[in-house]
């Protein structure tokens, strides 16, 4: 299993304000996927990059949220292997065991026993 992206991801209901902080720090928006999660929440994500090649993702969803969630965006080349790896070490699926599958990507958030989380993603290259 190869890790292909590994950077902070902030899930927020205040996306414009959070994006503006990173724009002020020199990050620019690169792309902007939208969709619906496996548990029915619509989401909007902004992938941002700075001049030194650092990345941050800022995502918002229709799920109510009192405080921002900071997690680790980890893209891998084999979602199923990474999912098995993490759940075998006690990670639990925050989406009631479901995986969001958009056709172009598989994703879910997994929580460690001590409380940090990883947003596990695999991009599907040959989607229609």
């Amino acid at each position, binding site marked *: 299993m*190869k*890790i*292909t992206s*590994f*950077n*902070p991801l*902030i899930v*927020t*209901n*205040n996306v414009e*304000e*959070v994006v*503006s*902080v990173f*724009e*002020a*720090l*020199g990050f620019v928006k690169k792309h902007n996927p939208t969709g619906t999660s496996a548990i029915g929440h619509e989401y909007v994500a902004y992938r941002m990059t*700075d001049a*030194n090649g*650092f*990345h*941050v993702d800022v995502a918002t969803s229709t799920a109510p949220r*009192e*405080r*921002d969630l*900071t*997690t*680790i965006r980890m893209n891998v080349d084999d979602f199923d292997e990474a999912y098995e*790896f993490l759940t075998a*070490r006690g990670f639990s699926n925050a989406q009631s065991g479901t995986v969001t599958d958009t056709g172009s990507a598989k994703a879910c958030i997994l929580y*460690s*026993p*001590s*409380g*940090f*989380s990883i947003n596990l993603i695999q991009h599907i290259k040959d989607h229609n």
Partner: protein
Amino acid sequence: MERGITTVKITTFNPQIITNHLAEVVGLFEALGFEKRHTPSGTGASGNAYTDCRMKDANGFYVDVAATSAAIPRDITSIRMNVDDFDAAYQLLTDHGFKPSNGTSATETDTSKGLLMVSPSGFGIVLVKHIRKEN
């Protein structure tokens, strides 16, 4: 309040996990292919002892895993952000409503200055500047 684009240069930007379970979290990232690079330790401005394990994988990705003697019910995930100008970055973040975590001041050692700052909506940035020794 002026909130323009900064001239601060970011030199490090990666996830940082603050935990009471250092060995367990480090063990997980070792299993994912990360290796320990260095492990500074000390006492923060709040009086809590800390150990910060910096880890890197073969693709150049970094994660910091920091143990604290403060009891925390759940791990805290934040952004480790090293900059070349601590004061300018501090000003930029405070202009956006960030506040030092728990009201603490920056932790200063012979080699670095660091402070966890929290945004109005709740995400955190560990702001760090390394200090070069003249001698």
